[in-house]
């Protein structure tokens, strides 16, 4: 899932404060699962914003609306009937959601309430960790199912570096060395011989280096 976290409250309040009526839009998918931008978080943030505004003796109307996904227009359009008098939309979806809402409603200011952070997993209740960077050319078959790009701090394709110590990355004592994880898993799977194979320099054009990416499946196009 896409993992995000809420921006500091005062930052959010600062963004919305110039307005009298805002919509606080939540998203029912990834950011609901990571407790950053679902219906519950909309309720909490809306309540806090109203109370904060009252402290400043300001009028602030907050229209609460959570849709299934902010990355599909079918759902975004459900916000339309609630937009009456709304001066700005504060989205607590991921960055894609914020932008798609902005594209859909060209005349309304759209603001981000979250910092979208990574593609990851729920490691324990309340703990999320990164697993993938969407490099566009998955290498997990070469590295025993552990991502060298997302889980090695230097995205080394032939690791580890000299900073790997007692299973930890030199970047932080809390970060497992991605390459230690790769080697351990190769060993457990009895495929340590693959570690001998050198991976050539990577072509990053499938990743961000190739510019904004697009996937186009003609078989799925709407028949007009």
């Amino acid at each position: 899932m896409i993992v995000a976290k809420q921006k500091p409250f005062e930052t959010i309040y600062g963004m919305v404060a110039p307005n009298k009526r805002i919509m606080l839009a939540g998203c029912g998918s990834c950011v609901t699962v990571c407790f950053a931008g679902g219906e519950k978080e909309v309720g909490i943030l809306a309540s806090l914003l109203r109370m904060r505004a009252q402290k400043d003796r300001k009028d602030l109307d907050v229209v609460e609306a959570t849709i299934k996904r902010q990355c599909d227009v079918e759902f975004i359009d459900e916000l339309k009937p609630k937009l009456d008098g709304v001066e700005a939309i504060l989205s607590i979806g991921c960055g894609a959601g914020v932008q798609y809402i902005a594209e859909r409603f060209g005349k309304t200011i759209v603001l981000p309430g979250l910092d979208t952070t990574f593609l990851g997993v729920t490691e324990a209740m309340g703990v999320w960790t990164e697993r993938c960077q969407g490099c566009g050319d998955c290498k997990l078959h070469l590295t025993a199912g552990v991502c060298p790009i997302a889980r090695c701090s230097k995205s080394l394709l032939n690791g580890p570096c000299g900073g790997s110590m007692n299973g930890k990355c030199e970047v932080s004592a809390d970060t497992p060395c991605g390459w230690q994880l790769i080697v351990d898993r190769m060993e457990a799977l009895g495929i340590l011989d693959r570690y001998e194979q050198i991976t050539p320099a990577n072509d990053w054009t499938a990743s961000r280096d190739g510019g904004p990416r697009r996937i186009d499946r003609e078989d799925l196009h709407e028949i007009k």
Partner: protein
Amino acid sequence: MVEVPSEKMSPATTPVFEPRIVALLCHYCAFAAADMAGVMRLQHSPNIRVIRLPCTGKLDILYLLRAFEEGADGVMVAGCEEGSCHFVKGNLVAKRRVNFTKGLVAQVGIDPERLRMYNLSSSMGPRWAEISREMIEHVRSLGPSHLRREK
């Protein structure tokens, strides 16, 4: 619901601040204790408005925020003593949510001291009367919430 006089005048005509406090009580302990206090003819103050929860584990951060937003001067949560929750961990979950909410309300200018959690068992009727008084005096000393609305 009992109507609380907004500002009572004491004999000396200095206005006495009568706090409005929302109490979220667990059905299995604090609510039963409050009930027992009633049976024992211990006075229940109209400053406290009770909401019964099936367990403090049902406590939602939104219940606490809503109470403050609607102008409560104080909010108290009372659950079973630690280790004796009817649903094992409900009161521990509530404790965390209360602490988390203290941080949230502090961000919007509400003194986190307006929110308190207590633990007591169902047989502690007199203790309920005591913590109610304590909470009322405590909130009285903090003064009215800036979100308080006079009806």
